[in-house]
């Protein structure tokens, strides 16, 4: 599987994603500039964390207009895996590939720490190596991570098992229904605020995020059938 990591102006966890895939998972991965228009030849695309366009206006709001985004949308429509963490998640909601929006944290502050999560759905292409309702701990690092959607949307997300990760003990940002990560209806687009790419090496304190990448990489054909 060949994976693209998109580099937006202001992306800064692009290295983290790339190295998790390249150095740790030995996957076939390449950086792709936001200026490119095509993702031909790639089987999956990942949007990294960071501060695209400085998070000016709203996190992810401006990145959605970059050249590469139509190609990302196309991949999502084709059922190929699309993954966004942190700023990547914010971009995926801004561009409409995932429902809802990410508000400023209730504390009004940036928060960087490791938080307990529950894997709510282990049937996705991203989570199949986790146990059902497994507890894991992943780092978060964001100022705008409070997930918001209207009640119907939230109900629909739960009915369709689109909620993949939930904050398990404390809610660090005010997310509705403790939501930390969701997929689209089809299950091939995952957005999450926590950073699994920061938890793939014991040296750095945790390997809890590793199985997310392995789930995807060991799928063979990752394409989700409709």
């Amino acid at each position, binding site marked *: 599987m060949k994976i693209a990591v998109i580099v937006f102006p202001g992306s800064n966890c692009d290295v983290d994603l790339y190295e998790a895939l390249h150095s740790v998972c030995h996957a076939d991965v390449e950086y792709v500039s936001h200026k490119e228009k095509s993702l031909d030849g790639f089987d999956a695309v990942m949007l990294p964390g960071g501060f695209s366009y400085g998070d000016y206006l709203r996190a992810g709001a401006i990145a959605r207009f970059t050249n590469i985004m139509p190609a990302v949308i196309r991949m999502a429509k084709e059922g190929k895996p699309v993954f966004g963490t942190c700023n990547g998640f914010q971009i995926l909601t801004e561009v409409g590939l995932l429902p809802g929006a990410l*508000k400023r944290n209730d504390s009004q502050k940036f928060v960087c720490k490791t938080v307990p999560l529950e894997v709510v759905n282990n049937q996705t292409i991203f989570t199949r190596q986790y146990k059902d309702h497994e507890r894991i701990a992943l780092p978060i690092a964001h100022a705008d991570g409070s997930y918001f959607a209207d009640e119907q949307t939230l109900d629909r997300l739960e009915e369709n098992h689109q909620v993949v990760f939930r904050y398990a003990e404390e809610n660090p940002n005010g997310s509705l229904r403790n939501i930390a990560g969701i997929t689209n209806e089809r299950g091939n687009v995952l957005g999450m605020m926590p950073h699994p790419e920061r938890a793939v090496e014991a040296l750095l304190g945790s390997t809890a995020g590793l199985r997310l990448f392995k789930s995807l990489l060991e799928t063979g054909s990752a394409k989700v059938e409709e």
Partner: protein
Amino acid sequence: MTKVRIFVTYKQSVFDPQGETIKDAIHTLGHDDVKDVQVGKFFDVTVDGSKDAVEKTVKEIADQLLVNFNMETYTYQVMEED
């Protein structure tokens, strides 16, 4: 050139902790006469063109960029023309 002020706020249904925090701070200052605080942002945009063209532009940039309709809503006000 027309200057338009575009006001963006959270929708009524969206909880805004910032307003609450500021209200608390105001009360700490002793101003219990302040009963409610809501926070919003605004954009002063200077646009070139006829009145109609300006309004069209304002609506377009609000719809496409300035406002996230999942949680926000907006109004605008023409400030000055020349």
